[in-house]
């Protein structure tokens, strides 16, 4: 997995043009574009639920998935369990996919048998407000491990680029000073807050 901030709207010219508005007021006008690479399709399905964002994702209609077994994200829990069944099934799917493509089945149809574990890469663009919300939800201890790891890497990139805005970003407990998850709280708020201090 890789996350790289490719482009962003710098805060300084906006602050000057606005006569010195606080960065919080400028959030809707700030834009951030990330290259998100080699995540699973299971993870990208979660990403695109953030609707106030733009996505351009590798298309399985146009790009043939070659050597599927080398382009798979294996969850740590599956690896810890030995992954034999997982790897066996991936191998079988890989062979079946290749056979279908060789038989002339369009890639857009052959892809129907591909698993959620298959790797994908995409461009993602969010405004500042949406990105803070994304970090609030996806850096949380309750987020699924892969999208949480992705959010953490994106946060590192964002903090390096614009620390004034993103040093206060992280899971909502860190942003708000309390946990908004109610009865679903992880119960480890202080640990999370300490972990996100710059």
């Amino acid at each position: 997995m890789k996350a790289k901030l490719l482009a962003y709207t710098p805060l300084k010219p906006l602050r000057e043009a606005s006569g010195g508005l606080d960065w919080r007021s400028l959030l809707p006008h700030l834009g951030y574009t990330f290259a998100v690479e080699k995540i699973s399709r299971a993870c990208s399905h979660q990403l695109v639920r953030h609707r106030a964002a733009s996505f351009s994702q590798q298309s399985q209609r146009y790009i043939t998935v070659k050597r599927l077994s080398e382009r798979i994200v294996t969850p740590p829990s599956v690896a810890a369990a030995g992954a034999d069944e997982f790897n066996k099934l991936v191998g079988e799917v890989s062979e079946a996919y290749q056979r279908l493509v060789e038989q002339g089945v369009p890639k857009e149809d052959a892809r129907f048998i591909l698993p959620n574990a298959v790797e994908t890469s995409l461009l993602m663009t969010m405004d500042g407000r949406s990105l803070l919300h994304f970090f609030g939800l996806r850096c949380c201890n309750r987020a699924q491990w892969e999208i949480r790891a992705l959010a953490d890497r994106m946060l590192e990139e964002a903090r390096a680029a614009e620390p004034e805005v993103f040093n206060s970003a992280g899971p909502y407990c860190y942003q708000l000073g309390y946990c908004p998850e109610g009865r679903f709280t992880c119960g480890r708020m202080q640990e999370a807050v300490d972990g996100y201090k710059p």
Partner: protein
Amino acid sequence: MRLTLVAHTPHVEAMVAVSMLTTTSGAQPSTLHDRLVANPEKVKEVAGRLEVQHGNVMEHNRLVWLVEATDDEVMEAMLDARYLAFTRLGDDRWLMSGNLRAVAEYAGQRDTEFAGKLVESVKDAAPTVHSYIRRGPR
């Protein structure tokens, strides 16, 4: 009405090209970005094929304008262009932002002074896309 582009994400057209090739080429987007930023001719060639691509490839950028206009003029723009964001700075002064797709779609739907100025304002930041917006889809 005055409209001034005060900031934008860098390499606007290179990012359009990165987006177009990410969906179809199999190369990693960060690799495409590094290659294309160093090759303006390739960017022009890829962005020149924009008419056969989907509009979302024009969304990976952010453009910010200072708008000097009356409340009525701004209200009209707000109602017409849902994907432009506005912040009031003072009497007849606004900060406005959006992406190239919002510009292209607004210009395609409205033939107003505001639409004309909006399109002209992106000429330097995105010359190929500017030409595409002015001529419309083939």
